[in-house]
Structure formats: structure tokens, C-alpha cells
């Protein structure tokens, strides 16, 4: 733990200002906050395509069609699954970018 924080500290921290530990802590907090905002956004999509389109509003969406299928039914049996797969790959992309931004990559 302590070793990690030292590693994260900038090489030449200015004296008198915030200590390297404070800066490292700030960086962690900022990273975590951004991570959480991605999670909220992605999980919102996750909820909408499955519970929204596939269950709660399935009847309304069934008035529309995709190919030969009713849209709500299609979301419940196909569309939601495609979006799930996409969501994970989007998440991986976002998080890798975030890791690089904060220098937390491995």
C-alpha cells in the first residue's frame, strides 16, 4: 500500500504545497469518481435495453418492427444481448483510456 503511494507520487513534488501523499490521494479519488460515472452511464444503458425495452415497455415497442419481428420481443430475445456485449467492450475501452490518463495502467 504505502509503497504504491510512493510510486504514484510525482518525482519532484514541490515543497511547502500539498504533500505527495495528498496529491496521490487526490488522483485516486478523481480516478474513482470518473470510474463511477462510467459505471452509472453504462449500467443505465444495461437497464434500459433489458428491463426497459425487453420488459417494462415491451408492449409499446411491439407496435414497431425490426425485420419480421416485433421490436419489444426482439429486444428481449436478441437486441439486449448484443448491447450487453457491446457495453463490456465500450467499458474496456473507456477504462483503458482512464488508466492511461492517470498513469494507473500496468
Amino acid at each position, binding site marked *: 500500500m504505502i509503497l504504491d503511494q510512493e510510486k504514484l507520487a510525482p518525482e519532484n513534488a514541490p515543497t511547502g504545497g500539498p504533500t505527495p501523499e495528498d496529491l496521490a490521494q487526490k488522483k485516486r479519488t478523481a480516478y474513482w469518481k470518473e*470510474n463511477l460515472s462510467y459505471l452509472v452511464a453504462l449500467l443505465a444503458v444495461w437497464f434500459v435495453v433489458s428491463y426497459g425495452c425487453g420488459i417494462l415497455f*415491451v408492449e409499446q415497442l411491439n407496435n414497431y418492427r425490426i*425485420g*419480421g*419481428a416485433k421490436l419489444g420481443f426482439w429486444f428481449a430475445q436478441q437486441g*439486449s444481448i*448484443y448491447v450487453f456485449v457491446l457495453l*463490456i467492450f465500450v467499458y474496456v475501452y473507456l477504462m483503458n483510456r482512464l488508466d492511461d490518463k492517470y498513469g494507473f495502467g500496468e
Partner: protein
Amino acid sequence: MDVQAWTFLIVGLTFLLYIGIAIWARAGSTKEFYVAGGGVHPVANGMATAADWMSAASFISMAGIISFAGYDGSVYLMGWTGGYVLLALLLAPYLRKFGKFTVPDFIGDRYYSNTARTVAVICAIVVSFTYVAGQMRGVGLVFSRFLEVDINTGVYIGTLIVFFYAIMGGMKGITYTQVAQYCVLIFAFMVPAIFISLNMTGNIIPQLGFISEVNDGSGVALLDKLDQLHTDLGFAEYTNGSKSMIDVFAITFALMVGTAGLPHVIVRFFTVPKVKDARISAGWALLFIAILYTTAPAIAAFARTNLIDTMQDKEYTAMPEWFKKWEETGLIAWVDKDGDGAINYAPGAAMEGKPVAQLKDGLPLRGDYGQVMVANAATTTENEVYIDNDIMVLANPEIAGLPNWIIALVAAGGLAAALSTAAGLLLVISTALSRDLMRMQIKPNMSEKEELWWARGGAAMAVIVAAYFGINPPGFVAATVALAFGLAAASFFPAIVLGIFDKRMNRQGAVSGMIVGILLMFGYMAVYKLGWFVDEVPSKDSWWFGISPEGFGTVAMVVNLAVSLVVSRMTPPPPQSVQDIVEDIRIPSGAGEAHDH
């Protein structure tokens, strides 16, 4: 060559392959035994996770269940895939960073308590055993149907194979056999699906055939035709459900959260080298799973349309050969209630229970038209046919008139699905015994070599118990899968998620939450599914909030969350060292290899 010869050949070859891999990938250390040395490539891990996850039920039964349930079957499709999003976003990267070997490891360390560890061990064992019994049974069923051996003999053969590679190779052997098993099972699932899609819609991709027009020049969409057939026969429309919305919601949610909480799935993410790999391998896993899960509803719709078209109002004597063949195995049965020699398919059960043939001199007794006579009492509905769920996948190649080697391939695919899942579950049980119980609690000073022996012994014992359950399936086996998901949802998921996202969560909160969650889930299941403690299984009307036992995991999970949060806020915060662990797992850098103390 006939089907039987092909089946022996293909199944034999795949088994040789699995054993070969097991010898090549045998484990030399506990780390290799528990997490395959932590060096599995993310794509390989994705495939192994997919094979681990997709059981005999996914491969053999799911398409059939959807075929009969229509829209209501969506709960399984969304529930068993959506959980991977939760797993990827909320659990996998953090648990990989935590870097131990098992789920009870995390629970025990994060909640600085051996009580918590023990509760987690018990949950892991109960969840895994309920699940594994079904897999061994599945192995036996596939053997008996395709190789015409006794179900029990099938269970013994399957047990021997799993025994060999799970005990020798541990996680390392299992991982690489699962990669091979994924390839076998997905190929076996896709080939018949593609042929049937071509036959029925002219579209080579089943997922597109699903939303296309039927191939008979009428220009009617397949799903519209199916809805029409359903309405004509008096069924609810295929694309509309008959379950209540709240129950569909609750079941889907319980399955998703349960998936994310299943220990044999979670442990797979300990096997990759980095946090980054844990995230991406969840993506690969879901992609590989989605190939099967988006094909299954297409197969379901094709098979259903095909089946109704083939049977409805046709003379029994005009039925194709597969109809009669599967009749002999008890997967199809026909009672000529009106005595007209034609098949009448309608809603409701045709007979009481599963068909049992009347025997005469050891052979099935035949009726006027050559049909197998069943001993079951006929019901008063107009329906004359019993059709087993499993027929949809098992008989598909024959229905589509595909060559014998493809039929044999389906048998090998079903076995691959059952064996890969069984092996993954057995490993969880063995690890729970050797590491979480022996090493962490009873005998902390034992050498690595000794621990490895405990792990192998645990695996051996687990295989034998699983085989016993496979041969003598407990009466509540139908309820157990739902129970396994419910328990995982009600116990592990909240404890792990709170452990990562709520730094203030402490031992008191997590333990009380888990215990209340499990007891609630177990109690509801016991009363409303099994009818224990009451005179008879209560009717739908008395379900809490209109939620079925299958969906009750959702309620139990919410209660667990609430109890954990309230209790933790009324008790002292966790020690600084534990809060530091939480800080640490939130940052990916420095994960290194899975490490021991």
C-alpha cells in the same frame, strides 16, 4: 456409418483430446491448481468461462424451454447474459486486483472474519453441489440417448473422465480442456442451426433467419406465422408472454445477479495476468456465450414452427421417422383421445406426468396405429401429445434431415457442455475444502505439497458425491438450479459489491446481510416451491408481491443490501488496514500475479 458408430467415434475422439490436454497441463503447484498459475490469455479465459458457464441445460434444454415458453423464455436469455455486464463492471477487475484465489478468500479478508469466511464457504459448497448434480445427470442422459447405455453407466463414464482431468490438472487442466470443449460445443450447436435456418428461411445466419420471412413463398414473417399457428391452436401468441410483468422482471434480475455471484464463474477471473485482462476476458466470455444465446431463440422458433407444421391434424402413420424414434425414448408420446388416428395438439398437458410406456414381454405395447401405449392417465384437455423440452436440440439434426455425423456431433457437444461445467464446479468445491477450510482455518502451517494433496483429495471426494447425486437425483432437483441462483444472488453478490464500493461496510453488516439473505431465500423456496412446513405447495396467489420462487432471489438480495447497510452504520467502521485494502483494489496498477500471504 450409422449414428451409433459415428457417436462412438466422435465422442471417443473428444474424450481422448480432453485427457491429452489434462496430461499436458497437469498442475505442479497450488497456484496452478487454483488459478492456472494466473497466466491464462484473456481470449482463452473467455472461451473457458463460456464453456464453464454453458451447462448441459444451456446446450440441451434452453432452446426447448424457449420454444414452449415463447416470450416468457426471454428471462433466461437476458438473465444468463446480462449478469456478465455486472460481472465485468462491478466485480471482475477488482477481485483480480485483490489477487487471491477464491471468493471466500475475498469475503474472509475484506470482512476480517473467519465467520464470514465460513459462511462464504458454506454458500459456495451448497451452490456448487446443487448445480453439479444436474450436470452429472446430464452426462448420463446424453450417453443413454445416443449410445444406448444405461443412464447410470453414463454417469460412471462421465465421472471417470472428470475425475481424471480435474484431479490431475486442477484449474490449469480444466481451463485448457474447457477451451477445447467450447469449440466442440459451439460447433455442434451452430451447424444444425445454420442448416435449419437455411431450410426454413433461406438465410444462412440463424439470428437473421429469426426475423426473416418463411421460405415457402407466402411472404409471411416466420414469427408472424408462429403467432398465427399458436392462436389457431388456442395457445397465447408466441411473442407475447403469460407471466406477470413483475415476475418476469424479478426472475430476470435474480438470474443476472445470481450469474454474477456464482463462485465458479467469478473464480475464472483470478486466472488472468492483469486487471486489464480481467475486464476484457469478461467481454470475450460474453461474446462467446452470446453466439449460443442469440442462436437459441432462433432454433426455438424454427423448431416450434416445424413441429406444429409436421404434427398438427396429421395422421400418426404419416409421421416422420424421428417422431417414432423419440417416442421410444419417452421424449414424445401420443394418446389418441378421440380415436381418429390423427394428432391433435392443443394447450395443456396430454397426460399426467412424464410418459411411461406400457410393457408387454419387455417390449413397449403398441396401439392400433403402431404408437407406443403409455401407462399414464390421460387428462381431460384436447391435447394428445407430450413433447419433452430437450427434443428441440437433440432431434433438430434429424428433423432437418442432416447427416449422421452431425447427430453424433450434437451428442459430443452436449457432453462437452456438461463436463466443462461439472469440472469448474468441482474445482470450487475442492478449493473451498483445501484452501478456505484446511489452509485458512484448520491447518495454517501445512506445506504447499500437503495443500495440493488436500485439493486433489477434495476434488476426488466432490466428484464421488456428485456422481452419487447424478445416480440418485434428489427429489428437489428441479428446484435446485433456481435455488443456486437465488442463493448466489442473496449471499455473495451484495457482500462482494459492497466490499468494493462501500468502504464503510464492516464485518457485522456483511455477515448479518448474508445470513438473513440466505435464510430468507431458502425459506421462501422451501415453502413456495417444495411445500415444506405446509400441507401443500401454496398457489400463485399467495406469492409475496406476485413473485415466484425463481424470482425471489431479487427480493432476498434487496433485503441483504438493506440489512447490511443498516447494521454496518450502527456498528464500528472496519479497521484502517481493511479500508486500505479497499483503496488498493480500486486502482488497477500493481496487480502482479495472484499472490499468497
